[in-house]
């Protein structure tokens, strides 16, 4: 059984801000049914770009639900600029930490938030920049480079824990290794 903190358990059993948000004017979606987890984040943003309310709908494991719930609590009352600085670590810290195999749940929160902010600002995130490395979970080399730098990831296993990349068929593990090496080489 996973070693979940009391905060994770609490947010899983009594998730805050669940369901569609009436009057939401920004939505960010990430993940898919195939991946095994997905999050739809709703924001109600006022004209000063302050998040007046937030809610979520999540399909996924306990830590995915808890990460989503925590995210909505964290960002309520923030301006979009403030919210844009929220990282997956903030979400994980709020919950007293996540098992390392579950870090991708907090990454999912950060990603949905980014998309919701872009959605509000009318910025279209079209196709993702960079080249797809992991076909199973649709992860690009640039995303891997970002995650490696931001979280000090060392091994392909770390990358899988954070981004899921390489956790499906495993065919891209060598390619992930190359990306890792390239980041290390550049220091």
């Amino acid at each position, binding site marked *: 059984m*996973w070693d979940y903190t009391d905060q994770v358990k609490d947010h*899983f*059993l009594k*998730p805050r801000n*669940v*369901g569609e948000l009436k009057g939401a004017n920004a939505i960010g*979606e990430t993940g898919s*049914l*195939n*991946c*095994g*987890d*997905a*999050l*739809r984040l709703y924001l109600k943003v006022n004209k000063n770009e302050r998040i007046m309310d937030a809610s979520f*709908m*999540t*399909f*996924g*494991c*306990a830590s*995915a*639900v808890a990460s989503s719930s925590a995210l909505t609590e964290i960002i309520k009352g923030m301006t979009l600029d403030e919210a844009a600085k929220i990282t997956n670590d903030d979400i994980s810290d709020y919950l007293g930490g996540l098992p390392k*195999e*579950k870090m991708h749940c907090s990454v999912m929160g950060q990603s949905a938030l980014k998309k919701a902010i872009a959605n509000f600002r009318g910025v279209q995130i079209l196709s993702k920049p960079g080249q797809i490395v992991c076909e*199973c*979970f649709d992860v690009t080399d640039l995303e891997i480079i970002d995650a490696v730098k931001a979280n000090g990831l060392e091994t392909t296993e770390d990358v*899988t824990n954070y981004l*899921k990349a390489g*956790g*499906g*068929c495993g065919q891209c593990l060598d390619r992930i290794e190359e990306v890792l090496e390239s980041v290390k080489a550049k220091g």
Partner: protein
Amino acid sequence: MKIVYTDNNATTKVADEVIEEMLPYFGELYGNPSSMHTFGDQVGKKVKEARQRVADFINADPDEIVFTSCGTESDNAAINAALIAFPEKKHIITSNVEHPAINNLYQHLKKTKGYEVTFVPVDKKGLLDLDLLYKSMSDNTAIVSLMWANNETGVLFPIEEIAKKTREKGILFHTDAVQAAGKIPIDVKKAGVDMLSLSGHKIHAPKGIGVLYVKKGFKFSPLLIGGHQEKGRRGGTENTVSIIGLGKACELAKENLPIMNTEVRGLRDYLQTGLLEKIPGSSVNGDLEQRLPNTLYIGFDAVEGESILLLLDREGICASSGSACTSGSLDPSHVLMAMKVPFKSAHGSIRFSLSHYNTKEEMDIIITTLVPVIQKLRDMSPFWKDGKMV
């Protein structure tokens, strides 16, 4: 809190009768069964009795029973012996839904020893593609290893039929009967297999004891090389206590076999009908007929297995799931993937596996608990709206 234990394909309760049988051998009767003195030999006699009981359970001769440390060791020992017996043959066959004990061993042999491996696929119901299986058998095939019953779905492979073919072609045939034992009748002579694995902890004996049946006449090379124990087929002083427990468990399993097929099957069917009726968007994984009588593997659309298990756990209900999140891997179980179960229900698949200790009352507890649990998770799910998938 009362525990409702419906995870018997993971492990089972050690029967009270088994514990009673073992207790003296934990204590005063600690002798070595190989010793010359009477003190050790009384343990030796008891081990002999256990060997007879195990043999009776599967209609083997006592000499054909090799005690091992677990089902995994039995599987490894069987394949190892086959490859040593036929060093020139470089092809091995199995299915794509095996337990890791076989699957990972085969992957290992492929990677490190260059064996050509055929993983025969199953269809949507988990049934084996027999045509492909027969076609892949060749003069170069050292061994065919197929599970008798699948640990996740409970789906049965037609072992007797397959054994006819392997005999025709003169290929060794091993079956992992770890899940079949105690749930359906096993008769090695009728089945016609060359080797067969059992594991104690699936049939109400302790963990850490297994059996490999090795048909008379096969020149078996041991995996664990050491002393003369098990007639040179497995070195190491015997786990006497567990062997004695396993003997008793086999005797009980033989007695209880009819109950499995009547009462336990009845409970499973009752649970299955109840859940399918009360929870829309649910479906059973695996063939409904060619299936163990104790296993129900049921998928719920648009929800995720770990979440279901944790909410059931709060009510004392023990089950397992084929969801990615419970195993630490990211894809749903390889069995569900091999069966091409759609992702919408694969991630939310829960396995209930019963024993004769379960009651109808417990099935009712599961049904009344699960209905609101699934509802709660669907209320949260972006893929479920107004009573259906979106």
